[in-house]
């Protein structure tokens, strides 16, 4: 039930549902203060407990994400290993119906370089093979070294990527490049793609 569906409460209903007009005034005040105190202490206890629990959950999540971000071949594949934020999805992916295969260029914002042979630009572009597929299922007869634990591409998400450069020395096939008018850009080839955290 949502808050807007709660019936309005009259003042005193909840605080002292059993009170009557015949109680002495002093006893009534003391009882009210006692109940208020219990309520405040209870609320504070619940708040502290909740905060502690949230803190523990976030720490566990971080630990879990860190564990998955370095899973598989991400630390060894390719000559580049970065953590980066997927800036946007430039339109829909084409179907991956088993008949046609392609790579799709995505734009990233660099967060951290883990391994690199040469500079990695603060904004860079990555060609991902058959992006509709989970990275765990993307490898095939033609590109057997690809993988990762990324389930899907979502703008704002953070990925840990093992990359190669240039893309066309590692992939020969159709390329969907909706940034083709950006002259001089370098396109990396994604070998391993892990999730490293959700976007906002």
């Amino acid at each position, binding site marked *: 039930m949502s808050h807007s569906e709660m019936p309005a409460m009259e003042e005193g209903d909840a605080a002292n549902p059993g009170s009557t007009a015949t109680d002495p005034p002093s006893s009534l005040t003391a009882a009210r203060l006692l109940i208020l105190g219990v309520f405040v202490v209870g609320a504070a206890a619940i708040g502290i407990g909740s905060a502690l629990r949230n803190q523990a959950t976030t720490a566990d999540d971080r630990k879990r994400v860190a564990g998955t971000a370095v899973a598989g071949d991400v630390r060894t594949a390719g000559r580049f290993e970065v953590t980066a934020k997927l800036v946007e999805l430039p339109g829909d992916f084409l179907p991956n119906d088993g*008949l*046609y295969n*392609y790579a799709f260029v995505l734009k990233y914002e660099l967060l951290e370089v883990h391994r690199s042979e040469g500079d990695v630009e603060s904004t860079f572009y990555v060609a991902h093979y058959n992006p509709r597929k989970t990275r765990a299922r993307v490898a095939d007869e033609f590109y057997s070294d690809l993988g990762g634990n990324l389930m899907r591409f979502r703008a704002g998400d953070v990925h840990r990527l093992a990359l190669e450069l240039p893309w*066309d020395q590692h992939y*020969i096939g*159709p*390329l969907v490049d909706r940034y083709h008018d950006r002259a001089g850009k370098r396109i990396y080839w994604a070998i391993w793609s892990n999730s490293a955290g959700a976007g906002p």
Partner: protein
Amino acid sequence: MPRFSRLLNLALALAAVSLAPQQATAADARAVEALRKEVAGKGFLVASIKQKRGDWDLVLMRPDGSEQRKLTDTPDWSEAAPRWSPEGRRLLYRRIKAASVISHDRWGFQGELVMADALARNGRVLGKHTWGCWSPDGKQISTLSLKGIEIIDLETSKVTRRLSRAGYFQQLFWSPDGKWFCGTANVGGELWTIVRMDVVTGKWNVVSRFRNCTPDWAPDSKQVIFSNRPSNQQGYGWTQLWIAPGEGSKRRMIYGEDNRHIYGGGLSPDGRYVLFTRCPKDGGGSERAGAPGGLMRLSDAPIIGGNSPALRKLHPEAHQGPVLELPDLWEPHWTYTDVTAGK
């Protein structure tokens, strides 16, 4: 020809027309029979045909589909995409493990290239040699790979030249006059573009944009035949066979049919006839069991098969036929050489 044989051929032609989705008439049947007679003695076709046991074998036949005989019979291997050498005395094809599904557009990356005599005997595995294709003199082959376009001397197996592959990613074929390559490429953010490249300078131009593949040269080296799925259709659309001058000016449709995807386009050695396949599902049928082959005169183009009302509105000048039906096959190739002469 004995009278019985003539009657049998007419009956077969009538049967073929009756299987076609369009309304068959006696005139249609006579036109198909005339086409059949016209081409039957013009050399040979070779194509891959799926076997019940699961692999693909090379099958030789007359251009009307008669006199079929297996050139290979290898349960553990599929033989795919055969092409006779320009003089018609040797054959290149790919040998792919029978357990593999042959990709309709990436088959050139699969298996190994084999060179054999014209009847697929005495085959020699040349190596991976992706998209290996005859040079005009039959002494070299061109290949397409991540390394680029390579020209390999067949006698020494040495790479004699390497060019940048530009945007080419599949289906690279060398023109009969030796001056050009054609292939499928990424160009300016647009995939599935047919591109022609000057073999000497490496300069290239677009032949046809948007959803094209499986290009091949006309014998005059001036035109390129290819499959195209135009955008002026409802929904997914149907792939049609088109032809365009190599310099990329106006293209024209050769054959189209709603409910069929047309692939495997190729011309006869004199450029007068067109071979193709009519696949009910997209792709040329290599992932399944092939597709019915078709043969028509180029001078009869454009032809629209079946009812295809939407397509007929777009091409009111199109003919109904004739189209000679061939067996279910994949990637047929045609020579006028009598490849059986030396047997």
